């Protein structure tokens, strides 16, 4: 399987990612094309954007992106054009809607939960009876600082 994937990625078209002959003459349009293609997944290589991929299919997609852009599509129109044909699988950044809300909110939710537990824990430790001799009071600490400075 590993061999197969590497074969698909490297043998299928022994060329390097974006080729000079694919690029658009208009630098602004080309920059948009690069931006879009770095967010689209190569369907035969795993976890590589079509911008980085060496596969033939990625080249076709890169040309398709550039073709749509020269025909006057906006960035989001180009993306939805490709998603309509290949499914949301091609998006390296999953859409927010539906079940994906779990993915996007998992981090912030965990942060809130963890922060809540941490605050409770710290407050409990702060209130707990000291096991050894108690901590210095503010005045004691100031006095100690004074001694240290001398």
């Amino acid at each position, binding site marked *: *399987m*590993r061999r197969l994937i590497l074969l698909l990625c490297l043998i299928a078209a022994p060329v390097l990612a974006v080729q000079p002959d694919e690029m658009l003459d208009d630098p602004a349009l080309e920059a948009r094309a690069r931006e879009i293609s770095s967010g689209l997944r190569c369907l035969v290589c795993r976890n*590589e954007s079509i911008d980085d991929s060496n596969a033939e299919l990625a080249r076709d997609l890169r040309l398709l992106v550039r073709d749509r852009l020269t025909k006057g599509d906006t960035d989001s129109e180009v993306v939805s054009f490709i998603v309509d044909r290949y499914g*949301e699988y*091609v998006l390296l*950044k999953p859409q927010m809607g539906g079940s994906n809300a779990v993915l996007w909110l998992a*981090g912030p939710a965990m942060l809130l939960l963890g922060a809540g537990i941490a605050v409770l824990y*710290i407050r409990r430790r702060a209130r707990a*009876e000291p096991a050894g001799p108690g901590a210095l009071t503010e005045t004691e600490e100031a006095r100690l600082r004074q001694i240290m400075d001398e």
Partner: protein
Amino acid sequence: MRTPSPRQCVHPGAPIAIGAPVPSAYDKRMITELGHFALILAFCVACVQAVLPLIGAHKRWPGWMAVAAPAATAQFLLTAASFAALTWAFVTSDFSLRLVTLNSHSAKPLLYKITGVWGNHEGSMLLWILIVTLFGACVAWFGTNLPPSLKARVLAVQAMIGVAFLAFLIFTSNPFLRLVVPPFDGQDLNPLLQDPGLAFHPPFLYLGYVGLSMTYSFAIAALIEGRVDAAWGRWVRPYTLAAWIFLTIGIALGSWWAYYELGWGGFWFWDPVENASFMPWLIAAALLHSAIVVEKRESLKSWTILLAIIAFGFSMIGAFITRSGVLTSVHAFANDPERGMFLLAITALFMMGGLTMFAARASAMQAKGVFAVKSRESMLVLNNLLLGVACFIVFVGTIWPLVSELFFDRKLSVGAPFFDLAFTPFMVLLGLVLPVGAMLPWKRGSFGRILRALAPAFVLAIAAGLLAFAMQTGRSALGPMGLFLAAWLVGGSVTDLWTRTGRTGDIRDRLRRLTRLPRADWGKAVAHGGLGITMAGVAAMNAWATEDIRVAQVGDSIDLAGYTVTLDDVRRVQGPNYISTTGDFTLTRGDDVIGVLHPEKRFYPVAQMPTTEAGIDNGFLRDIYVVIGDPQDGGGWAVRTYHKPLANWIWGGAILMALGGMLSLSDRRYRVAAGARKVAPVQGVPAE
């Protein structure tokens, strides 16, 4: 005069006499069989080591407990013998072994014959087990100050891990399987793996992954004992630190390899397999900080135990992800459902066992230390929170495609754009609070004093950020943020060290005190500074890298970011086991010639695979990175040129982090046995 040896007496056409001093095919096979036998013996020893010491520790039978240490040594030596036998088979190209046939070739350079041992599933698993037994043996050898019952239990748990993985190796992925008809030559190692950077990437990574098995064993042993104290924290921290250092080096090597080998200068792809190594790194970083709290303040005990269990869990999930092929990735090897199920079962067994033990016994861990809200302890809790949640995000992102397809019937991808967006804020936050937390005193502190001390570092950091913002061409916030964090972390570390020299005395006194600070203090400063350097490198690469892609004829010049790259020639070169198209480029700035670059496009005929070797001019502030592509129809060659600002800071920072860890590891308190008599101060010897 030399006496003729028996062999020289033999007629040239006759077969070599038995007993001739050359390794015959028969000897070679014998060594392999001995290796196989040693592996099975190691499994038997591990079974004994997993049971007897545990019973001994429970019944307080010293003799049974004492089995653990020699068994751990024996288990290590047997596994080492087995590994040596497999290496021998690779070096001598014994193609009667299936594994050697599939992954080696007689024309391969010797270095890659050796590294080919772990360039495949079976061999790398044997390496993994070798390291499991090595860590166990380290406890047996160096853990002389451990209480006998704890030592017996730690080694028993470590042996259980050994049993599980040895069974996995012997029953599902035996490296010593034979071919009935040995082929004339092998199928060669994947050419991408024939590279010094990648050759040593797996051993370091495994040392890290498996180092966490040691913290797991310590955690389970402590749960069985029902006791966690400062001494436990001190025993477990060196292993955590070591694991984290190895992971840091392993990940950095992998990323560096990707940077120069894959041909477009990317260094991190948020690939499932990369994430599999990154998650244990994040958790190990959290664990080595919380273990300090256990060691110094006897708090956060149950949390540290939980982290130790989870950390090894992530290591095993990493092994599962890499080897099962469930989350297929570019470098997943051995996609095999049976192996995947076995690994999943091992992971589930150790996690469920560990967590059940934790649930049953964690309440016995009484925290002793009391601390205020504004204290080092609280800040380390925040560190653990940020690293823990960051790891959780990577985990969710990594498994989400699987979850989504299984439960929601949505086939989708989670790639770099998601991780960049979801993960980066946590690292920025971590960098912002780190210098403050690192300086806040234990128990109770005040922010005012710390912030006053840190004011110069903060001003410097703001200046660095503003300078970057003014100098950059775009409006990116990322680049300036990276430089701000780098200056803030490095400045904060310097401030921390400097304030530790006290408030009094002239500069010379304080500098002298600086050299006498404990190594742990230096380690902390160096590692934190390194993190800042890495952050700057990552931010600069993402924000400011520029590139040029074009068709170049011989003699053409390419201008990029103030440099000129000229294509002088393109040559065909014959390598040891490949054919190369090599470009000769001259790199100039103005009229100065800075260097000559030789990017290559190689073709490995045996594996039928091309690779690219970039030509890189390394610099402190930037790399110039040139890649040669295919000849074009209209003449000329596809050439890609990149300007990568601060590229080497990424790996330089990683080296600093690892160095900081090593400094910490060499701190006196880990070298001197706990409770041992203080060494008498050395008397000065008068100069003669």
